[in-house]
């Protein structure tokens, strides 16, 4: 049984995490737009632009099309936002242990990640527009495509930690406490880098950004999944996009660059917490810059049939090679005992 004070703590931290997720998520979207603008030699919107957009969307009329299934159409954005916030409760933020860290691990996070995408699919099908239906089908195909390489990354990292004799290799707490780089030998580090690459390519697909934004393709599908959404509902999808950006960056940070400032230099209690949070934010922005902003400025959109082969064939192979290297690393005693 969960004691009542513990329940109160969880509820309290859930409220904090919700506010934090929404604010930081929108901030990340703003930073992304600013960085992309600078890369194109533009001034770009102010960093608080997403907040302005959100406020505008909230005063717009909320249209529910006549031929839409109204309750699914209205429910999908709420569930999408809620489920992306729930994932945050399982992820470490700086040096703060995740509020629900004891109740779920990386596998659960992987499953939860599909819920916002599924909500968008449901919302797309429910909006009764052919564009949205095509978008929803593409979203499903993309989801099936990137799930496989993502699973390889998760399993490979956890397996290597388990081979090094670490307890509960799937919980984010122990993954963050034992970075893969400190556990693995030289071979394993090469494998880890390959997995990092896979993770970096999965991130834009998960966030449906260029080059994997086939489901929202504005030029072909007129906004795809979101074609019929307006006003409040669109604002909710916009928010969940921001929170999902934070989630994906936080997962990459927790699995691959989990170090905290306070573990490198000794700092007084209160300062350490703030420093860690800022350092975490810096890492999140770095991850987002490399795998979202940079890629989205530099590349064009993939065709939907290419998306599947990119993920299943190329990234699947890269991920498997990474996994094999990690296994070889654990099997060869000379390399394996460096930990």
């Amino acid at each position, binding site marked *: 049984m969960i004691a009542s004070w513990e329940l109160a703590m969880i509820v309290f931290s859930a409220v904090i995490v919700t506010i934090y997720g929404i604010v930081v998520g929108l901030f990340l979207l703003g930073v992304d*737009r600013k960085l992309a*603008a600078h890369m*194109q*030699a*533009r*001034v*770009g*919107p102010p960093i608080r*632009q997403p*907040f*302005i*957009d959100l*406020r*505008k969307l909230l*005063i*717009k*009329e*909320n*249209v529910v099309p006549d031929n839409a299934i109204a309750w699914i159409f209205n429910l999908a954005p709420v569930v999408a936002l809620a489920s992306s916030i729930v994932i945050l409760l399982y992820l470490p933020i700086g040096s703060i242990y995740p509020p629900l860290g004891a109740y779920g691990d990386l596998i659960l996070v992987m499953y939860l990640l599909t819920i916002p995408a599924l909500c968008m699919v449901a919302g797309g099908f429910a909006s009764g527009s052919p*564009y949205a239906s095509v978008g929803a089908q593409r979203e499903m195909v993309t989801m099936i495509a990137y799930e496989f390489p993502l699973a390889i990354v998760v399993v490979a990292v956890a397996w290597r930690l388990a081979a090094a004799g670490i307890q509960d290799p799937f919980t984010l707490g122990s993954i963050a406490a034992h970075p893969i780089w400190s556990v693995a030998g030289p071979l394993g580090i090469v494998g880890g880098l390959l997995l990092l690459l896979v993770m970096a390519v999965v991130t834009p697909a998960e966030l449906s950004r260029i080059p994997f934004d086939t489901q929202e393709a*504005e*030029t072909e*599908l*007129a*906004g795809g999944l*979101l*074609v*019929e*959404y*307006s*006003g409040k509902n*669109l604002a909710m999808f916009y928010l969940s996009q921001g929170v999902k950006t934070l989630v994906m960056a936080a997962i990459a940070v927790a699995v691959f660059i989990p170090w905290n400032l306070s573990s490198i230099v000794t700092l007084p209690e209160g300062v350490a917490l703030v420093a860690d949070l800022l350092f975490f934010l810096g890492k999140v922005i770095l991850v987002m810059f490399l795998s979202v902003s940079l890629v989205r400025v530099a590349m064009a959109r993939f065709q939907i049939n290419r998306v599947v082969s990119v993920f299943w064939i190329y990234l699947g192979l890269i991920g498997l090679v990474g996994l094999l290297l990690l296994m070889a690393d654990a099997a060869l005693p000379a390399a394996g005992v460096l930990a």
Partner: protein
Amino acid sequence: MKLTRSFNRSLWAFHFNSGSCNGCEIEIVAAITPRYDPERFGIKLVGTPRHADVLVITGPVVKKMKDRLLRVYAQMPEPKVVMCVGTCGISGGVFYDSYNLEGPVDEVIPVDVYVPGCPPRPEAIIHGVVKALEKLERIQGGGR
């Protein structure tokens, strides 16, 4: 409908071609290039009328496009502004006596801002957007 300041700092535009010769399109595309960078002011092009605050119409309304124009206009959520870019949309322009013309844009739907020119320069289009913002500010001041 109560408008707040955030509305005119985040205008999303949907471009609709009601029978234009494509000259105006080229200038609209020129107006969203990095050289003019309207995203500084939160202006961006969106792919669907449902997300849009501004409807940018180019060209005169031809017979086949009238119904579509009315439908796209109805699909946009309130509050909305209509901008008519190019002489064609204002008077019919070079196509004024064409046999398949329904008329200038403002005979089909209400227009808020006109941008004359054949085609108008990007500066003129941006100026038109500024006029649209001023109109929105007036609406904010007086209520609707």
